[in-house]
């Protein structure tokens, strides 16, 4: 069978840049689905306008979470598909990979969702997301001028984040 002879069919992967600089974009959502932060480092393709893009991303995560909660093969009693679940309840997921990108997802107990989209060859980024969450706590939550639930506008957070993401390999 020669159907799978090679990988020519799929376009060649974007070459991973020398050191680090693998981040494509990042989203932070709160539990109501409001996009608190959107950072973009390398995104050549925009198909939707920004608001629709955020909505689609949140919808994807929400549905994938209910899918994994329903599919979980280790627990016998599961809630019905689509029943809203609290953060930490039910089986969740931490990453998925396609041929062009890898998405890593983390949800804090308070419902803050951090999503990092990187090059598909990057390793396990769960620790990195925890670190980013700590940055969020330090620079955003502890900022007295920040009102919870509003988009993040903290210069210090953005610069530290950019620096950190550049170092992820």
């Amino acid at each position, binding site marked *: *069978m020669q*159907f*799978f002879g090679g990988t020519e*069919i*799929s*376009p060649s992967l*974007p070459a991973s840049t020398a050191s680090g600089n693998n981040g*494509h*974009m990042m989203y932070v959502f709160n539990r109501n689905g409001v996009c608190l932060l959107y950072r973009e480092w*390398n*995104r*050549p*393709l*925009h*198909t*939707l*306008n920004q608001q629709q*893009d955020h909505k*689609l*991303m949140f*919808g*994807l995560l929400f*549905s*994938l979470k*209910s*899918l*994994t909660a*329903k*599919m*979980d*093969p*280790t*627990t*016998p*009693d*599961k809630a019905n*598909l689509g029943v809203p679940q609290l953060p930490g309840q039910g*089986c*969740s*997921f*931490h*990453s*998925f*990979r*396609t*041929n*062009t*990108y890898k*998405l890593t997802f983390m949800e804090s107990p308070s419902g803050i969702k951090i999503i990092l*989209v990187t090059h598909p060859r990057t390793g396990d980024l769960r620790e990195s997301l925890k670190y980013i969450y700590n940055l969020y706590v330090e620079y955003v939550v502890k900022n007295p001028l920040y009102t919870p639930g509003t988009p993040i506008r903290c210069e210090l957070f953005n610069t530290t984040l950019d620096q950190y993401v550049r170092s992820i390999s």
Partner: protein
Amino acid sequence: MAAIYSLYIINKSGGLIFYKDYGSSGRMDTNDSLRVASLWHSMHAISQQLSPISGCFGIELLQADTFDLHCFQSLTGYISLLFFFLSKKVTRMIQGTKFFVVCEPGTQHMEGLLKHIYELYTDYVLKNPFYEMEMPIRCELFDINLTQAIQKDRVALLAR
């Protein structure tokens, strides 16, 4: 201990045409498996739209807390062209027959198994003159060979 929990095959339009459970606790009933399959079909399509780079073919591996889901999509299917009015861009969405297995986290060589299952599908399902395209798979030979393939995979896993 089962390495592979279940196998699903969904057709180009998201309908479940084959589902087999290999010992997951609390197995799904027919309605739930149909729902899960069509949900996966849509999530797969959305993941293509959210790609930062063009040429995305959808999710290949989903890592959840208690399982991994490996998905393989056949190359034959619809190519839908989506024209985005605002950004004046066209993206291709590819929707073929999808095969996906739910297995233990960290199970290796699932891509190979999925490709083998695809070969079995082409040999014993598509070449079966009584099989109607896009309809649920009821082919005895496919079942027999599939069971063998999964068994072999399990033995290979134990030997490793």
